[in-house]
């Protein structure tokens, strides 16, 4: 446990010092909230939300913030590889599993903090959290999304030599996962051929879970959401740990 804590602690120290990263990764979901939220608020009419698109959008933006921060945190291992710091960790008498879990929890924590920042901004923009319990549910889903996608980032980083492939992964893997998740629009409004795709997107269940917690309304049963995204988190952690174990330097 103490080793996992050590790795986690380092992630936290680095996070707190990287002001530009904190602000950088808040800006995108915040601008989405402002532009799309206010721009489309009176145009879009979503069943169950009425003419209140911004309320619908807020949980999606929280999820977006968690998603992007966590993937980025995971992929940062490449930098540790390039800067040589990973060697220092790998040659210590600790298991790779401990290192990987420390990185995962570190990434998930930063991602959840970023998500909470968006939540705070949302409160200022008129989000009304239903209850304390609802908030905790949303927080739980954020943690699970954070773990899933940090592990996902670690898995990718374990197979990549440098950051050149990063843009590719962001554009062709992460952005579709975000776009098809129902963060921006209700999944029921999609054409029939597209709808099954959103159903296999794990983030859909994360977004719906957060939405249930924050607004009390969701299109997928929250228990199902929990089972799917929870299972995905376990799966990604196992895959991430497996690939991380095979890193050689």
């Amino acid at each position: 446990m103490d080793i996992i804590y050590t790795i986690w602690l380092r992630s936290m120290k680095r996070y707190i010092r990287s002001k530009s990263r904190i602000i950088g990764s808040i800006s995108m979901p915040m601008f989405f909230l402002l532009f799309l939220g206010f721009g489309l608020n009176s145009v879009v009419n979503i069943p169950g939300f009425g003419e209140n698109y911004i309320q619908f959008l807020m949980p999606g933006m929280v999820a977006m913030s968690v998603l992007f921060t966590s993937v980025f945190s995971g992929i940062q291992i490449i930098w540790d590889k390039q800067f040589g710091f990973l060697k220092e960790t790998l040659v210590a008498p600790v298991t790779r599993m401990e290192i990987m879990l420390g990185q995962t929890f570190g990434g998930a924590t930063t991602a959840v903090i970023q998500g909470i920042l968006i939540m705070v901004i949302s409160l200022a923009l008129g989000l009304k959290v239903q209850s304390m319990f609802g908030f905790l549910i949303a927080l739980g889903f954020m943690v699970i999304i954070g773990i899933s996608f940090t592990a996902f980032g670690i898995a990718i980083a374990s197979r990549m030599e440098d950051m050149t492939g990063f843009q590719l992964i962001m554009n062709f893997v992460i952005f579709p996962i975000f776009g098809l998740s129902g963060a921006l629009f209700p999944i029921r409004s999609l054409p029939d051929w597209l709808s099954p795709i959103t159903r296999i997107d794990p983030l859909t269940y994360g977004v719906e879970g957060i939405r249930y917690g924050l607004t009390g309304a969701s299109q997928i049963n929250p228990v199902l959401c929990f089972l799917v995204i929870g299972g995905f988190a376990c799966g990604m952690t196992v895959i991430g740990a497996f690939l991380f174990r095979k890193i050689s330097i």
Partner: protein
Amino acid sequence: MTPAIQVTDLTKTFGDLIAVNHISFEIEQGEIFGLLGPNGAGKTTTLSMLATMQRPTSGSGTIQGKDIEKDEDGVRKAIGIVFQDQSLDEELTARENMDFHGRLYRIPPDLRRQRIDDLLRLVELHDRKDDLVKTFSGGMRRRLEIARGLLHHPSVLFLDEPTLGLDPQTRNHLWHYIATLSREKNITIILTTHYMEEADRLCDRIAIIDQGSIIALDTPQNLKDSIGGDIVTVRTSDINAAVQILTGSWIEQVELHHDEVRIHLHNAEQRISDIITLLNQHQIQIHSVSMHKPTLEDVFLAFTGKRIREQEGDKKEMMRRQFKMRRH
């Protein structure tokens, strides 16, 4: 007493390439042992295997009696490493880098704090302990890495090209530290280098390694003595004729390298005029004559027929570093 390090027939191949070829040696407790050779000779691969970072293809090794394949954790606890490339977290302070290391090696908090203070004083970084590493110079980073490598009180310290890319002054400074360390803490040190002077100044014994094999292993003095006395180098346009006439009981050995004749002999100061007279008598034109005491460079040349070519190595290394910098 068991040797600090024992290596038997250690071999590592990457596909067709034999990086390390059946090397064997023993290092005594408290010794400073050098692996000297050009870039790509297999020094770092050897170190990686001993540090459990890479698995040997065949052969075996023990560190303080612990097997490098069967007891990875035992070996890892017994060793401290300073890698060839930097391995600090630049976003953390000097103290935090040390603290991270101390926690990884499960040193209790009080002891950890005490040792970090002591070691940072030892490497004269105590007044900078709360500064971020990214503000440190190359020499300071190296010193911090050495301090970090010592934090868990290893009995064996691995130094992979410890002074690579540092300026001569800092290099001298570091040599001083390393020598002091070995004396005061009785730590066994194994270091790799392609700097002749470094090996000569620091090491009790040196293994000269080329193309994966150890070609000579002895104290620096014995190695230099082994190639016989002094060296007179004559550059001439007609080396073959020069070799023909340079005979005599006082000449131990004559080697040819490009346009040079290298004559191994004793008391070169007294014999140099004889050489010049001899060549003049046979009307062999002399471009230059130089004389020097043997260095490890000469030893390397005598054993392998080539120079270690520090210059070229440095240039490549610099380019590689610059390339890495740009990528960051």
